[in-house]
C-alpha cells in the first residue's frame, strides 16, 4: 500500500506541482468564503431592509390568520364558498343578493344567541363534514367514507387543533406560493431569457435541503408561524412555476395561431387561449405545490410553526413513540385528503373527452347561465 500511496507529509522536496497547488489554494480558494458572504448578506438584509421584512411578515401573517380563522370557524367558510360559487355560476346580480342574504343571516348573530354560538364557537365537526362532502363531490363516495374514518381517527387522537393549524399553514403558504409562482411561470413561458434565468433558481430552491430555509427565515422573522409559512412557500413554489410554464408552452401551435389570426391581443391570447388550455398542467403543479407545502410545514415546526409537526417533534424530543406516530398518522391522513381532492381538479371526471370536461367545468359556469 505504501508504494501506491506515498505519504505526502514525508515528502521533502517541493516540486512545481505542489507549489502551484499551494499558490492556487492561497490566492483562489481561501478568499472564497460562501458561508461568510451569505451571513454578511443576511446581516445586511436584516439591518437595512427592516421595512420590507415587516411588510412581508404582515402580509403573510394576515394570510395565515385569515385562513386559520376560516378553518376554525367553518360557518364563515361555508358562507364564503356559497357566495363565491353563486357569484361564479349565476353572475353579479344573484351573487350580490346571496351575499347580502348571508350577511343578514350573520348579522342575526348580534341578536340571537344560537346563531352567535354557531358563528364563534362552532363544533369542530362542521369543517370535518365539509371535508367529507367535498371528498364525495370531487372524488366519490368511497373516498368520502375514507375521509370520514380518517377525520374520526384524528378526533380520537385529539389532534384536531394541530391538524387545523397545519392545514391552515399549508393552505396559506400554498396560496401565497401560487400568487407569486403563477405569474413567474407565465413570464417564463413568454420569454426564453426569463426561463433561462429562472430555471436554475428553481433548481436551487428544490434541491436545497429544506431545513436550510429555516435559518434565514428564523433570523428575519423570528420564531413562529410566519417564518414557517415563508420557508414553506419558498420550498413549495417551484412545481407550480415549472408546470405553468410547461403547460403554456405545450399549447398547440395552431391554437395559438388561431387566437392570433382572429386578432387576439397578447393578453387576450393568454387568458382566452393559453391559460385555459394549459389548465390540466397548471392544476398538476398546484397539486404538487400543496403536497410539498404539507411536507415542509412539518419540518417548519422546528422553528415553532406548531401544528402536527410540533406533535412529531415532541415525540422525538421525549422519545415518545406513540405521540410521534399519532402525529405522523394525522399528517398522512391530511396528505391523502389534500392530494386526492386537489388532484380531482386536474383529472378526468367523466367518460369522453376528459380534458374538455375539465376546462368546461372550470370556465363555463357563467356563460351557460347567461345563454
Amino acid at each position, binding site marked *: 500500500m505504501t508504494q501506491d500511496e506515498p505519504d505526502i507529509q514525508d515528502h521533502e522536496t517541493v516540486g512545481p506541482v505542489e507549489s502551484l497547488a499551494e499558490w492556487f489554494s492561497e490566492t483562489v480558494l481561501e478568499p472564497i468564503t460562501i458561508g461568510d458572504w451569505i451571513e454578511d448578506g443576511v446581516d445586511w438584509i436584516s439591518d437595512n431592509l427592516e421595512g420590507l421584512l415587516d411588510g412581508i411578515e404582515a402580509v403573510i401573517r394576515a394570510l395565515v390568520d385569515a385562513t386559520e380563522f376560516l378553518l376554525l370557524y367553518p360557518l364563515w367558510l361555508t358562507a364564503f364558498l356559497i357566495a363565491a360559487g353563486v357569484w361564479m355560476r349565476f353572475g353579479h346580480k344573484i351573487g350580490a343578493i346571496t351575499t347580502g342574504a348571508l350577511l343578514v343571516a350573520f348579522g342575526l348573530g348580534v341578536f340571537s344567541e344560537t346563531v352567535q354560538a354557531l358563528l364563534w364557537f362552532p363544533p369542530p365537526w362542521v369543517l370535518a363534514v365539509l371535508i367529507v362532502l367535498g371528498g364525495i363531490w370531487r372524488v366519490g363516495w368511497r373516498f368520502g367514507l375514507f375521509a370520514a374514518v380518517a377525520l374520526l381517527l384524528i378526533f380520537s387522537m385529539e389532534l384536531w387543533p394541530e391538524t387545523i393549524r397545519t392545514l391552515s399553514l399549508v393552505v396559506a403558504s400554498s396560496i401565497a406560493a401560487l400568487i407569486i409562482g403563477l405569474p413567474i411561470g407565465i413570464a417564463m413561458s413568454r420569454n426564453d431569457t426569463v426561463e433561462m434565468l429562472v430555471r436554475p433558481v428553481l433548481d436551487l430552491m428544490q434541491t436545497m435541503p429544506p431545513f436550510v430555509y429555516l435559518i434565514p427565515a428564523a433570523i428575519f422573522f423570528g420564531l413562529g408561524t410566519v417564518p414557517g409559512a415563508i420557508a414553506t412557500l419558498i420550498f413549495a413554489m417551484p412545481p407550480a412555476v415549472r408546470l405553468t410554464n410547461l403547460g403554456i408552452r405545450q399549447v398547440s401551435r395552431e391554437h395559438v395561431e388561431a387566437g392570433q389570426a382572429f386578432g387576439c391581443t397578447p393578453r387576450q391570447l393568454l387568458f382566452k387561449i393559453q391559460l385555459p*388550455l394549459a389548465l390540466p398542467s397548471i392544476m398538476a403543479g398546484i397539486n404538487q405545490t400543496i403536497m410539498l407545502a404539507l411536507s415542509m410545514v412539518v419540518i417548519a415546526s422546528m422553528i415553532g410553526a406548531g401544528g402536527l409537526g410540533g406533535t412529531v417533534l415532541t415525540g422525538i424530543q421525549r422519545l415518545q413513540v406513540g405521540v410521534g406516530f399519532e402525529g405522523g398518522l394525522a399528517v398522512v391522513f391530511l396528505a391523502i385528503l389534500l392530494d386526492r381532492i386537489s388532484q380531482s381538479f386536474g383529472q378526468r371526471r367523466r367518460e369522453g373527452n376528459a380534458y*374538455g370536461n375539465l376546462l368546461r367545468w372550470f370556465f*363555463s359556469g357563467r356563460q351557460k347561465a347567461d345563454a
Partner: protein
Amino acid sequence: MSDKLVVEDLYKIFGPRPHRALELMEQGLDKDAIFARTGNTVGVREASFSIREGEVFVIMGLSGSGKSTMVRMFNRLIEPTAGHLYVNGEDITRMSRRQLIDLRRRDMSMVFQSFALLPHKTVIENASLGLDVSGFDRARQQERALQALEAVGLGAHANSYPDELSGGMQQRVGLARALATDPTILLMDEAFSALDPLIRTEMQDELMRLQEQRSRTVVFISHDLDEAMRIGDRIAIMQGGQVVQIGTPQEIVSNPANDYVRSFFYGVDVSQVYSAGDIARHDAMPLLQTGQADAAGARQQLGADGCAVLLDEGARFRGLVSARSLTDAADLDAARIDGIDTVEASTAMSDVLGRAAASDWPLVVVEDGRFIGTLSQRDLLQTLDRTHQ
C-alpha cells in the same frame, strides 16, 4: 376584377442572420447550399403574384414547399424577411401591431388543418371567438355567430361541445368561426386535409356554395391536386419555396412549367379538369349553313369522316349530316340525322365520356344553343392520354 392581395418580392428565411442568407441567395445559391453555409432555411423565395378579389386562389405544393409559410405571411403570423404584401393597396408589412390586429379582426380570418377549436367552449362560443376578442357585446356575438353557424348548417348544434361533433362538423365550426367576423379574405390552411375523402368533397361543395352566396377572396392551401382543381379559380404551384407556376387548372394541366409540376398531374383525373367546351374542336368537321347549299352540293363538302355540321344563320346548331343521310334527302334539313347528342360546354369531361361511348356520332358541344365544336371519341381519348406522356 381588381387585385385584392398583391405579393411583391416576398422572402422568408428562418434561422439566425437571415440577411446574410438573402445576400447569398442573390448570388444564386440554392436552398441546400444556403443551409450548408449559414444554417438558414429558406421558407419562401422571391414570390410575386396577385390574388384577385372574389377568386379562390389555391397554393399547392408538397410539404416543405413553403405554402404554409406563405399563407401565414398574409396575416403576419410569420414575419416576412423581405418584400411587400398589399391588402387593398395597403402594405401590411409596414403595419403596426395595433393596425395588424385590426386587420385580422376586420378583413382576414383563417381556418386550420387541425380545426384548433377550444374544447371547453360550446360551438357557438367557438364561432364567436373573433367577435369576442373584437369586443362585440354578448347579444351581437350570439346573433352573428349563430348566423355563421346556420350558414354552414350547424345552427342546431350551437350549444354542443366540439368533442361531441364529427371531424367534418368540427371543421364546419372552424369555417363558421372564420365567417362570423364577415371577413373579405379567408385563409384556409389545408383546411380539409384532415377529413376523410367523402367529407372532404362535401366540405369543398360547401365552400363553393358559400362562395356563390357571397364571394370572398379565398386563399386555399392544399397538397391535394384534385381538391385544387375542383375549387381553384387559379392555382399557384410552389416548389422549394418558389412559386413555379400560376394559372387556371386547365392552363397548368395543358402546359406544365416543369417536371415537378408535371409530376403533380401524373395520374390525375384530367376528365375532372376539363369541360366539354375546353376540348371541343371547332374545325374537325365542315360547317354547312341551312339554305346555303343543297343536298348534292353538300356531299362535295363532307369531311374525312363523311360528316358535316349544319348551322342556321345565327350559328345555332341545327343538326349533323352524313354522306348516307344526304343520299336520299330532298334538302339539307331532311338529311339531318336523328338522335344526335348535344352537350353544354360547361359539362365536365368526365360526364360526357359515357355519352360519347354510347353514340355512333361525335358529340356536339353547344353553349346556349350556339355551336362550339364537336367531340369525337378520338378527341376524348387523346385528351385523356395527354398527361401520361
